[in-house]
């Protein structure tokens, strides 16, 4: 089955992973800007990172017939440094017209601190000023519920079209509030700290597939870039219709991304 992985950090994956993804039916990925595993020293290293996301990765992906899209921001972890964050916020607009940029992301909270909240709000203002879509990271483990609720509180203060915002890494206790508020939600299949394919399918069965996407969030940590096909298999084993599976892994991300002017997905069936 053709699918889109809407959240995958390919800068920290090998070219072999692109090949495996292509063989498994992945036709497009979107890569939110993220923490590199260490704090960067200056705004300039973000400029290089944004070049990697807008110039290098699309070429690497194209070799395997995968379309590469991206989102730009300073991630929640480094957002603790307000001064550095403001430097990066000034650089982002230079890249917004690059042909693979879908919007601002993944912004959000990490430890739910004051500085993270301040920079989250400044990213939202940037997104609104430039009519950008927004992709949001929610914290992990014991911080997730509190952080997700804080993010929903802050989002509610902006007059942004809620259908252009995706709140990611939702789990059993956060998916309801996100969908009920009218935002898109993403579920991340990730060993230990996030959702498993079975639990993600449970969430689809409980909440329906409207505005719900699923991703691997593969990165430099223990993660599995091919986790989306695991979900496809689990849905099939439970007897779900192919049309429902396709909606979750292909139609939904396509529909969400289609609201961005730079999203030009080639229909794989018509290639």
């Amino acid at each position, binding site marked *: 089955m053709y699918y889109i992985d809407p959240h995958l950090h390919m800068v920290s994956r090998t070219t072999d992973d692109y090949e495996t993804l292509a063989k498994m039916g992945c036709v497009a990925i979107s890569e939110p800007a993220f923490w590199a595993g260490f704090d960067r020293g200056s705004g300039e290293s973000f400029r290089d990172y944004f070049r990697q996301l807008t110039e290098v990765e699309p070429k690497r992906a194209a070799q395997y017939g995968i379309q590469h899209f991206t989102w730009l921001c300073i991630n929640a972890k480094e957002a603790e440094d307000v001064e550095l964050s403001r430097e990066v916020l000034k650089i982002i607009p230079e890249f917004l017209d690059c042909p693979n940029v879908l919007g601002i992301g993944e912004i959000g909270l990490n430890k*739910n601190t*004051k500085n993270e*909240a*301040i920079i989250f*709000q400044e990213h939202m203002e940037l997104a609104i000023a430039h009519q950008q879509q927004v992709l949001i990271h929610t914290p992990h*483990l*014991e*911080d*997730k*519920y*509190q952080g997700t*609720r*804080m993010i929903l*509180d*802050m989002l*509610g*203060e*902006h007059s942004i079209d809620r259908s252009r915002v995706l709140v990611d890494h939702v*789990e*059993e*206790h956060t998916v309801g509030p996100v969908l009920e508020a009218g935002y898109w939600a993403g579920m991340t299949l990730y060993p230990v700290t996030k959702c498993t394919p079975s*639990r993600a399918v*449970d969430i689809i069965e409980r909440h329906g597939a409207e505005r719900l996407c699923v991703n691997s969030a593969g990165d430099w940590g223990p993660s599995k870039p091919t986790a989306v096909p695991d979900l496809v298999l689990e849905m099939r084993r*439970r*007897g779900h219709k192919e049309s429902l599976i396709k909606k979750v892994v292909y139609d939904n991300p396509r529909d969400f991304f289609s609201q961005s002017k730079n999203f030009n997905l080639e229909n794989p069936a018509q290639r």
Partner: protein
Amino acid sequence: MNSNEILDREFLEIRAKILEVAAALDRIERAEGDVSGDPRMGLIADAINIIASEHSDPIRAEKIQLLFSRTYDEQWRNEFSIASRS
């Protein structure tokens, strides 16, 4: 899938996961030291109670998620002295 089919499919998985939890708790108890006062042990005990309890609405997973979550205070902006933008 009906409940019987799901049970057929999940029984050995559930059995294996429960054994893992039991063995890990045994390992903790067998080791030197005392963690009986550690709040995490209380959380584990509460989570096991949630699993064992009967629910008219099956939301065990959601309840366990909330059990392991920090509390959310609607007034969080006050603590940070951040004004609402709306």
